[in-house]
Structures are given as structure tokens and as C-alpha cells.
């Protein structure tokens, strides 16, 4: 289980946030935003999601042991934390 949850989490947010921002960029001043009181929710929230996704992705990748696949993970060492 070498997969850090933050990596897929970051990816999902990067993807969906990115799609929303792009869509929001192309539909600026479009009539669809009358619903949301003139706020371009796609662009704004999409960018926020991209930011969140990037942070998550970054931290997920930065974990030191990610660069060091040889030494055992904390839970693989001996009986580890089970008691």
C-alpha cells in the first residue's frame, strides 16, 4: 500500500478544478450565471479546487519515503505498531 491518499486526491481536484476553470473561462459573461447571481462559480471555485489539489498532490509526493522505495515502510517493519 505505497499509495498515499493525497496523490489521487490531489489529482481528482486538479482534474475537475481544471476542467471547471477552463469551462468558466470560456463562458465568462454567459447567461448561465444568472442562476448564481452573476458570480462565475466555475472559474472561481475551479481555481480554488486546483489550488487545493496542487497542495495535496505536492505534499503527497514530497513524503521522503516516496523517493526511497527500498527501505521498509513504517508499517512493514517487524510487527510494527500492532499490539
Amino acid at each position, binding site marked *: 500500500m505505497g499509495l498515499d491518499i493525497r496523490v489521487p486526491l490531489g489529482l*481528482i481536484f486538479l482534474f*475537475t478544478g481544471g476542467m471547471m476553470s477552463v469551462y468558466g473561462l470560456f463562458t465568462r459573461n454567459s447567461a448561465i450565471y444568472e442562476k448564481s447571481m452573476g458570480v462565475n*462559480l466555475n472559474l472561481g471555485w475551479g481555481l480554488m479546487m486546483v489550488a487545493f489539489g496542487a497542495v495535496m498532490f505536492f505534499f503527497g509526493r514530497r513524503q521522503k519515503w516516496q523517493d526511497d522505495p527500498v527501505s521498509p515502510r513504517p508499517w512493514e517493519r517487524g510487527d510494527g505498531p500492532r499490539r
Partner: protein
Amino acid sequence: MLVYFAFVLGIGFALKRYMRTSNDFFLAGRSIPAWVCGLAFISANLGAQEVIGMGASGAKYGIVTSHFYWIGAVPAMVFVGVFMMPFYYGSRARSVPEYLRMRFDEKTRAVNAFSFAIMTVFSSGISMYAMALLIQTLGLFHGIIPDAYIFHVSVLLSAVIVLGYIFLGGLTSAIYNEVLQFFLIVAGFGPLVWIGLRNVGGWEGIKRTLPVTMTRSWHGMEHASTNSLGVEWVGLVMGLGFVLSFGYWCTDFLVVQRAMAADSEESARRVPLIAAIPKMFFPFLVILPGLIAVTVTSHMAAPSAPAAERAPAVNAAHQALPEGPGRPHGLIPVKTDPRSGKPEFDSDGNPVYNYDLAIPVMLLHFFPSGILGLGLTALLASFMSGMAGNVTAFNTVWTYDIYQAYINKRGTDQHYLWMGRMATIGGIVLSIGAAYAVTSFNNIMDALQLVFSLVNAPLFATFLLGMFWKRTTGHGAFSGLIAGTGAALVHHGLTLPVGALPGLHGGWITVIHGYPSDMAQNFWTAIFAFSVNLIVTVLVSLVTRPRNEAELVGLVYSLTPKPVEEHLSWWQKPATLGIAVLVMLVALNLIFR
């Protein structure tokens, strides 16, 4: 634009395949960090009953609904983290029923295992049913699949997706998915609340529009007839806050399983506490939209009229207001073809309002295409996470506590792994059956509360005595459990909420007492079940022979060495975190009192 919520599920699928190597199907290898488990802990519980039910209750009852979080969850979560988790985690039991066997005896475990297995199947069935109904109502697949089949296709589709990822990755995969779903839900509903509040003029705007019973959570709690829930504070605090919530959060394997997957005992204890923090703020995500939905149409008659036309249930919810806090009763249940398009009327000729649509309708009302896809994805994610939680709990209990205990005692580990996968399939098939069986309540949450109060309420007394009173015996626990559930059944059979017909709502023996609402009835059923269990367990324990104390080390509070915490600095200790959580809780209650 809806294409991309299929896209998100696709990513989910790709993920699951990643994790197939995990052979620790049931406990995720006890290797998950606390914060991940914590998020999964609430997310597993965040099924249909939360998002749809809470939104519905928010629109129906108002901010009082937050009691389900602030009274009905957080204190119990703190308790389970600080006091009970050492026994679950430390005893090395693999499931809650297994703990019962270690503490008491085989028969107590059997009762718990079977009732729990049945309950999880029903809960996941309810999730599935609600989701399919929602997809059908919103017409998400309109034009792709013939309308008549949408319900069935949705049930099958959701079943297959959940089956896929649990089958492949077991609990790990379920937990990872729950974390993803948690963030999706926050991301999907966050902007909804923000834009909704902007629309109605903030919290002040809601307070101006709605009656005071709906915007203050403690208003009129002295007496059942002066608040919108129809419960007085004794019933609320004892029934919901003590019996039901402790029974659920402290004994339900569905949630405890998440904490047991943590990587150490300290982490396991921190899991419910970490979970309690976001839990406290969830009312703002799921109840507030309900309140806003009620406020919106009474507020903006002229502007954006076309949008309002797309929101029939919002209008409906608004019209329901003048009827006062009483709930519409004598409903024609939503049976057979639930969306024939004909409006339903109750016996007085008033239209029946579908509060369950409060949140979906809000999404359609405020979100332009694009983010609408995200919102709907969040909604579906919440259903999936609730379902998955039940299914993983079911397969573990089935395999360890029913199959291994009674059917095949000497299988290899590989065999049990295989059995777990089969149980996943079996559980989902049974859930589909349950999904078709669950249709007679208008408010999904009432149905779930009924199930919980019959099965869960007496349970907590057993655990409480088992963990903190070493004299408790197996016979005592067993007879207490049976008596408690029996008491719940009898109480349910003897009472009836005002205006309901005898039958599923109660009163099937004879009616000797009427409650102002079925909520009140549920709470009091739980209180009765708990008390009867407590009394019977104590009495029977006193006349039977207690177990040898040496056998109970690690299982009972007074015989277990206190967890060593010296290596933790004071802010890392579970108790500190617990106190911090409680302080925040009191503050919230004071703000919205």
C-alpha cells in the same frame, strides 16, 4: 457537462485497481494514518441519511436538526475515542461482535452479529434506493435510458461501482474512497451554501424570514408542543444524545471499523476525535441548504422567476411553512412508480411535500452547468460512501463472526479472503433487495432512526456495563440484549405518533400512548430499550457466576492498565483533544441556542 461526473467515477475505478495488492481485506492492515481514518469515519456515516435526510429535516424543522450532530454525535464520538477505543483496539478483536465474544460469550456475539448484518444490509439498501430515486427524479439519465428503467439501472449501476472497488481493495479501498468522497462533498456543497447565503441575505436574512423555532436550536425545548421536532429536552438529550448516539457511535462496527484500521492505539483513539471536528461543522453544509431552500422563495418573488419554476419542491417547502411546526401526516406513501408525475395529496387534500428534494433542488437552482456537475457528483459520492461503509462492515462481520464462527471454523486465510469477497457480492445483492423493500416512509431518516432504535439502543447498555463493570456476565449481557430489543419492539407496538396509522409507524399491538411526532416516539423507544437492558443485565449478572478476573484483562476498564501516554506531549493526548472538541461544541450551541 455532466459527462465529467462519470469521469470522476472513472478515476475512482483506476484507483481501486492500484490497491489490489492489499491482502488485508478486512482491517486494511491496521496501517492507515489517523487523519485518513478520521475522515473515513465521518464519511462512512455520511450516507443518504445525512445529506438528503438532514437537508430534508433542515427544511422541515429548521436548525434544530443540528442536534443530530451537536447532541447526537459529537459527545459520543469524544467518548468512544477517549474511553472505549483502547478496548476495541487493544483487545485485538477484529470486529465489534468479536469483542463481545471475548468479553462475554458466544451467544451474545451471535445476537449482535446477526442483527448488525441485517441492519447494514438495510442501510445500504436505503442508500441505494434513495440514490436511484433521486437520479430518476432529477432525470439525470434522461434520454440515454428509457424512463421506465432509470430506477433499476441506477440501483444496479451504483451496486456495481461499489462492488467493484470493495471487491478489489477491501477496506483500504473503501476508506480511501471515503476520503475522496469527503472532500468532494465539501467541495460540492461549500459553494452552494455560500451562494445560497448571499442570495437570502446571510444568516440574518434567514432569521428574518423564518419563524424563530426554525432558527434557534434550543428554542421551545421545554415542552414537546412548542418546538418543531415535537420532543421535549429530556427526550432529546436522553434519547438522542445519550442512548441513540452512544449506541451508534460507540458500538456500531460500521464506524468503529474505521478507527480499528488506524496504525496504532493512539491513532485509533484520535480517529473519532479528529472526525468530531469536521462533524461539528457539517450542519452548515447539509442543514443550512435545507433552511435556505425554505427561505429562498419566500424572499425573491420577482427576480430570477424562471429559475424558481424549475424548483417545485422549494415552492412546496415554502407553502408548508404556514402550517406551522406540525408535520404533515397520513401521507400516501410513495409506493410503486414513485414519479408518475401526479401530485400526491394527504387525507385532508393538502399536497404532500417531498422534503427529501431540498438539497438536490438547491443544486439545480443555484449552480450553472459546470459546477452543477460537481454538485451532483458530490451528492452521488455521499450515497456511495454510505453504501460502501455498510458493505465493508457487513462483509467483515459475516466472514469473521458468522461464517468463521458457525459455518467453517477451519478455513485457511485465503479461504476467508475469498469468503469476504463473496460476502461483498452477497451483501450487495441483499441490499438491492432491501432497496426495493424500503419505500413506505416519506422521510428517509425516520426509517433509519426506527431501525437504529430497535437494534442499537439496547446495545450501548451492554457495552457500558461490559467495559466498566467487571461483574457483568455473559448470561446477563445476553438476556439484557434480548430484553432490551424486546422492550423496544413492545414500546413501538404500544405507541403511535399523532396522526399516523397503526402499522409500521407503531401501535400494532394496541395504542396506549400517543407521541407528538415519530421522532419523539423513536427517542423514547430507545430510552426504554436502554433502561430495560441495563436493569435486566444487572439483575441477571448478580445471580450468575462472574468470569475469572484474569481472563478479562484488556477487556474491562478497571482491570486494564491505563494506556501509557508519557511519550506524548500534553497537546497530543486524546483527552486534551477531546476537551477541545467539547469546548467548541458548547460554543456552537450557545451561538445557535
